[in-house]
């Protein structure tokens, strides 16, 4: 029976230099790989390790660190029932990641969402457009330096956006032991 640990061992065996680190948390296996090896490793996962299901693609903004961004690929095998998480760091100076649409067609919309929210571009993506936010929006909303209330933007005669009035919000709970400070309230963070 194949386990996630076996797949990590196989990847370390095959790509010794490109697998930078591995991590196990609550029986979930995560490996960090070099971005340059991303297409080769993911193709190997798909073709040799039977990861036929791309569950999700997401991205993380570690603002203040270098490299700033991180791609996260959740792989699953419907044949061996193994789950593997693959991460790769992306530098802000060269925000381009190879697309995996040719491996898993479902990556199309996942990558569009990452582009929409984080501004990471995908090389050889067939249709890299925004997917959730309106087309004219000039920012990337899930970056850490984007304020919660939003920013103003304007396309004359077409559309506009304005910051939302937050009234000191968001409303967050405090210490749950103390009923007074535990009450959800605005902390004046906006």
């Amino acid at each position, binding site marked *: 029976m194949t386990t996630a640990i076996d797949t990590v061992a196989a990847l370390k065996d095959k790509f010794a230099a490109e697998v930078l680190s591995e991590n196990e948390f609550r029986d979930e296996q995560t490996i960090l790989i070099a971005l340059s090896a991303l297409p080769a490793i993911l193709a190997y996962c798909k073709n040799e390790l039977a990861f036929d299901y791309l569950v999700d693609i997401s991205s993380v903004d570690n603002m203040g660190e270098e490299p700033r961004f991180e791609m996260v690929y959740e792989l699953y095998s419907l044949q061996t029932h193994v789950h593997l998480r693959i991460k790769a760091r992306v530098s802000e100076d060269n925000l381009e990641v190879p697309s995996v649409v040719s491996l898993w067609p479902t990556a199309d919309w996942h990558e569009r969402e990452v582009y929409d929210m984080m501004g990471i571009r995908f090389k050889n993506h067939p249709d890299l457009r925004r997917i*959730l*936010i*309106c087309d004219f929006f000039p920012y990337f*909303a899930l970056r850490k330096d984007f304020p*919660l209330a*939003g920013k103003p933007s304007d396309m004359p005669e*077409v559309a506009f956006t304005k*910051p*939302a*009035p937050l009234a000191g919000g968001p409303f967050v709970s405090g210490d749950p032991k103390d009923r007074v400070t535990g009450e959800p309230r605005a902390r004046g963070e906006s």
Partner: protein
Amino acid sequence: MSAPAAAETPVAYDSKIEGNMIFTRVDTAINWMRKNSLWPMPMGLACCAIELMATGASRFDISRFGMEVMRFSPRQADVMIVAGTVTYKMALSVKRIWDQMPEPKWCIAMGACASSGGMYRSYAVLQGIDQLIPVDVYVSGCPPRPEALLEGLMKLQDKVSREASTVAQKKELIDELT
């Protein structure tokens, strides 16, 4: 003592049509016709649309007000009921459909989101549809009960019945003459 002479009436008396004549103002007649057949454009965008559907269903009987003819073509509609959260992405379509509706037209902002953005204090949500199109009636609630929407529609009927519809319709002609 003789009875006073009957006042002269300028209208010729005709017993065949007498019972069918009504004296009123043109505005009042037009407004009466308009307000009793408001055709809604259901702009259902979120959960408020479920209550909008309930309003249109048998239990609440919206046809009491002559409003049961929900039109999914803006060209046949009189009142746009904006029911739900208007995201900036959707706002362009809402505005376009509003522009396609022929005058006279009215707008109801149904629920907290359509009125003010509601709980969505977010970069992605328009903070009230009144930033794009003029709103006649705001209905509070999250979502409003069908009774609340019917109350809003009755408020709109009151508003329609008080409009100077002839002057509004002939505005260009009046501007030309004066």
